[in-house]
């Protein structure tokens, strides 16, 4: 995957002359379906953030416990009579918030670190790569788990834990292209013209690796959503009573005999969202890289 993405940047120069990337994205099936699926979930999540769910996601209605799906409760109710639809939507909003904060942090820090490690000499490169190697020596979920339990458990610390896990990925995908861009004529020209290094890095090199970063952001978002859900399934994610997709599935596991919908609803929401993000990521990669048209 790293190699694929790295190749995107190198071919960007000839990609510029074709139709703009967003138009190519809309023309591909995977891009279109991806935008649609993520769009639906994102709108629902935004509505949940604004409090527009049909029921209060944490309000209990003991009289309506474990009701199946019906016009009143679209996805049924759970063991406390809470509306599963409202909880699923609020849960995806929580997961998405954690994922967006986590990926933004890791994208900004990782890209800047990758830029510096690729552009500057070994004084900068060595420590950046040392930290990257250490973080890469952990299985990702294990690192997230250990970090999440080291901090006090709030949604923000979980986002930070996930961010730390993904920083090295951004370092790795950006450093290679920066190494080759550093030797390109336009960067050499900018140097000869006496531009300050910050301007060369941010104004000349960064825009050329942005496509790689954007693709990586989309793919990382889907991993971050899955990681957040896995952590809360293991009991180390967003603390209750805030609804979370992972802990909903965990609760539903005990109820599966009585109320299949309590697992099906959060499961369907998370799968829809991750499928959407993966398709969007594939579509974006194809859009930025005209040569890989065969995977659309």
């Amino acid at each position, binding site marked *: 995957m790293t190699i694929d993405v790295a190749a995107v940047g190198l071919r960007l120069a000839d990609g510029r002359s074709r139709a703009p990337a967003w138009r190519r994205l809309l023309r591909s099936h995977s891009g279109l379906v991806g935008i649609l699926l993520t769009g639906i979930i994102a709108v629902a999540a935004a509505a949940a953030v604004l409090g527009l769910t049909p029921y209060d996601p944490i309000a209990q209605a003991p009289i309506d416990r474990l009701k199946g799906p019906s016009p009143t409760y679209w996805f049924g109710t759970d063991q406390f009579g809470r509306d599963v639809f409202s909880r699923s939507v609020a849960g995806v909003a929580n997961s998405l918030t954690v994922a967006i904060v986590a990926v933004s942090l890791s994208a900004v820090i990782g890209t800047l670190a990758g830029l510096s490690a690729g552009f500057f000499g070994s004084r900068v490169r060595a420590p950046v790569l040392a930290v990257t190697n*250490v973080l890469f020596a952990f*299985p990702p979920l294990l690192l997230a788990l250990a970090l999440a339990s080291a901090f006090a458990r709030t949604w923000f610390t979980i986002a930070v834990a996930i961010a730390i896990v993904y920083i090295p990925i951004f370092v790795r995908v950006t450093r290679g292209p920066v190494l080759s861009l550093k030797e390109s004529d336009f960067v050499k020209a900018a140097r000869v013209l006496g531009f300050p290094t910050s301007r060369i890095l941010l104004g000349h090199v960064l825009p050329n690796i942005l496509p790689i970063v954007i693709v990586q952001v989309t793919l990382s978002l889907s991993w971050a959503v899955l990681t957040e859900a896995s952590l809360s399934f293991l009991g180390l994610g967003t603390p209750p009573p805030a609804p979370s997709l992972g802990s909903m*599935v965990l609760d*539903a596991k005990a109820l599966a005999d009585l109320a299949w919908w309590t697992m099906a609803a959060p*499961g369907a929401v998370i799968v829809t969202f991750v*499928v959407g993000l993966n398709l969007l990521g594939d579509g974006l990669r194809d859009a930025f890289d005209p040569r890989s048209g065969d995977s659309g």
Partner: protein
Amino acid sequence: METVLANRVTRRVVEAVLALLGVAVLVFVMLRVIPGNQITASLGTEASAALTPSQEAALRAYYGLDQPALAQFFGWLGNVLTGNLGISQRTGQTVLDMTLAALPVTIELAILATLFGLLIGIPLALLSASRPNSARDAVGQLVGLAALSVPSFLLGAALLSLVSKYLHYNPSAQGFARLFEDPGLNFQQMLFPSLVLGFGLAAPIMRTGRSALLEVQTQDFVRTARGKGVTALRVQVRHVLHNALVPIVTMTGIQFGYLLGGAIVVEQIFSVPGIGRQVLIGLQQKEYAVVQSTVLVIALLFVLVNLLTDLLYRLIDPRVRAS
């Protein structure tokens, strides 16, 4: 060229050792940051608050908490290097014994999962690549996308619920059977967890396999094989797949970290007493000794497998060796 290869190998080994040292530091620091210490973990917060100062000092000395952090770190590292991984308060066993019991279980799980991953992923890749952009390809890619997008905790929980509800079959409800004690029951208990893990693994194998197969298919020797009348299936398996194996093997090796992480989730769902569950229980019980040593063992395993994959890859493919 020999020396170039030797230098590269040495460099990778040195990098791996340095990374492990970094892992040890990070794990040590992380566990010191966790609120509460060994005393509150073993006695509970209320009982530890009621300790007299002299009792507390005695306990701190007993757990080595009165030492400076650096001394604690090197003490721990020295112990680990000599095989003393600490003792679990909960079970009274040494962490080394616990790890030696749990590790083979997780390795068995990882091997079975890799087998399932290859058994699902490679046929899918062959199916997709045999006619790109056709209905077949769409089916293959759709299954690959599902494998990528369905989290293992969801698949595991759903599988467990469905099978026990409709088939009244739940081998995990009995005590865990070790491989050499009761192979039949052990295989039944390992089947679902390794299927769930393997399904997730099938996604990257399928995707890498498909693009590798597509690339090999366009090469001249494949056209030659077709031209001399070799059957389509034989071309696909003997000529194309054979040459596409290197990226597939590499991808499978790279996914080992995913397997170890996924093992935590899957072992938890199916009550498999592997190393992932050992970390999770250690974290829940705040057992420093168990968590820090087990995490270090897992990282060691992960770094070793990555190193081996990297070296194997250079050995298998003469083109990489030459460049």
